[in-house]
């Protein structure tokens, strides 16, 4: 491992931890770093520990889950398509998962005793699969620009449907519309988050287990095949992983845009293109972006709270434009 990669790892971890503590200490009741650390490890006064554990830690968890999932999914998709301008939100996967969730919630509201929460991840995964199949599944239309534009077109279309469903349920529920259009932590209940946290960890462990063959895939299909990897199978599995990761992120935080695009590209600056080095840093950077956005959304405009997705958009979209401008 070279020095630059090591610096990348250390730096991204430190940034991530620092942002976590910052998020825990800022707010209506501001706590000192010492109080936060004490409360985290079981000590400290009662108020501090309630604030940290009950009010702020769920946001940290939600930010970590969405950040890690979106970043990992973005990196996988970029590896598969050999295209640095791709992620789950550009390809319409997030919008598909969102629409799946919205449809389920809309239907669930009209059927009594329907366990919406149980089926939510399935609906999101189905929506995500369908939209990716529509965007990437067409034969003979392989141009890079067309793939991206189809994603953009599908996102516009699906967002229209979401807007219609949500506004028709209640004409003034803009906050709820925005959850599924641009992303927001809509449920910060511990039980809810625990399930998705576990799912996220399981998926990311699988990605780590695939580091070696995926590293070969970065070098090209031929290289991967020559080193004894079953390329077709690997690609299919990776695609499913990327979809599942995006779907988990969307069920927790709505259709958050472009984190999966920004994180891998920043990580590449620090540690080059080697997949094994890139993956952990990408995940850390994704988490850092989400934590930063949560801090801004929850604190900068008090007493108003912003949906975190809007802040993410303001951070990541200019970065995308910058990348596009550099190309």
């Amino acid at each position, binding site marked *: 491992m070279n020095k630059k990669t090591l610096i990348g790892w250390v730096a991204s971890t430190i940034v991530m931890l620092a942002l976590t503590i910052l998020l825990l200490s800022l707010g209506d009741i501001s706590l000192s770093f010492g109080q936060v650390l004490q409360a985290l490890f079981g000590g400290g006064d009662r108020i501090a520990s309630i604030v940290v554990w009950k009010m702020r830690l769920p946001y940290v968890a939600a930010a970590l889950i969405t950040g890690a999932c979106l970043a990992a999914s973005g990196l996988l998709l970029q590896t598969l398509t050999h295209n640095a301008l791709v992620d789950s939100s550009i390809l319409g996967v997030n919008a598909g998962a969102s629409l799946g969730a919205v449809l389920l919630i809309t239907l669930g509201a009209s059927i009594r005793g329907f366990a919406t929460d149980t089926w939510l991840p399935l609906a999101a995964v189905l929506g995500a699969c369908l939209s990716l199949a529509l965007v990437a599944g067409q034969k003979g239309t392989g141009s890079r620009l067309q793939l991206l534009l189809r994603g953009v*077109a599908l996102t516009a*279309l699906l967002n229209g449907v979401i807007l219609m469903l949500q506004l028709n349920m209640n004409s003034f529920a*803009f906050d709820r519309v*925005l959850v599924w259009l641009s992303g927001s932590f809509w449920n910060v209940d511990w039980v809810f988050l625990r399930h998705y946290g576990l799912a996220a960890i399981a998926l990311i462990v699988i990605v780590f287990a695939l580091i070696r063959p995926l590293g070969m895939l970065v070098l090209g299909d031929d290289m991967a095949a020559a080193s004894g990897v079953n390329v077709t199978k690997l690609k299919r599995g990776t695609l499913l992983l990327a979809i599942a990761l995006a779907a988990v992120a969307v069920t927790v935080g709505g259709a958050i845009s472009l984190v999966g695009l920004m994180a891998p590209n920043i990580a590449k600056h620090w540690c080059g293109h080697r997949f094994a080095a890139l993956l952990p840093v990408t995940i850390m950077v994704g988490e850092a972006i989400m934590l930063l956005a949560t801090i801004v959304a929850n604190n900068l405009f008090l007493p108003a709270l912003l949906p975190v997705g*809007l802040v993410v958009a303001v951070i990541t*979209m200019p970065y995308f434009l910058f990348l596009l*401008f550099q190309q």
Partner: protein
Amino acid sequence: MMRRSKWALNAELLVLVLGLAALSLSAGVHWYAPSALWTSQPQVTSIMWQIRLPRVIAAAAVGALLAFAGQLMQGLSRNPIADPSILGVNAGATLMLMLGALNGLALTIINTLWLSLLGAGIAFMCVLALAMRRGGLDVLRFILGGTVFSSLITCLAYAVGLLTNSTAQFRNLLVGGFTGATASQALTASSGVIVVVIIALFAHKELSLMVLDDTTARSLGVDPSRVRLLAALLVVICAGIAVAIAGNIGFVGLGVPQVIAYLHPDRFEKNMAPTMLGGAAFMLAVDVLAKTVTAPNELPLSALSAICGGIFLFAILSDPRRQRL
């Protein structure tokens, strides 16, 4: 496709627009025949004259403006995927209107107009600056950069609305619609159409040369950058007026010019009139849907047109005959 004569197509479209206008006049919570405009019941006539007629006129005019803006942009960028809403012009106007209103400007017709023209102009300049290269317009940057820029501006508009607790106030602007169209708005929109048509008539030669490459245009004695400036100005005027009247409605300018070009493949300037008529017909049809499908609630118009436009855009992109983009 059988080639139709220009006049036949225009006449057909005009009949379609008038028919849809009549339908839109009669549609609503209560259905009245268009002849109710001259009925003896004062309550009904006032609904027809003060609510429905302005709405019909505004919808037709805005549709015409947006379709023409789309045609201009497609000519300007020489590619089929361009539209003021895709490229952030509409979003820019929306954001500027919100900012103006929140800074204490009363949203009178005049204020609305200049604010949204200013916003549209700034946004379009940003997108063009992003897309310009030494060799001319870079299509990838223009479309992809434009779409992302557009959603960035839309997110900012939502954020501004949420922070100032005014999303309800700006609902019509954010989701688009003709719900509260007034007589003065209808008047503004239709005078906007007239102004644009007059400019287009005077400049139709130049505009038709826009689709040529720069060297050919120059050899015909036209300065290509002047033509582009003119077209850009027209786009800003069209989109600005449309947003000022109806809020952020997208994708009208995407499909209509292409359907017209398919029905009647001809030079740019010959397709201007059918495109505007087609846009008016499309907007009227969508508006009728918006007010009837879930009556007495109204569907958000921007969502409806995004669905139509998204399907259309997706179909273009998946068409195997259009590999070259």
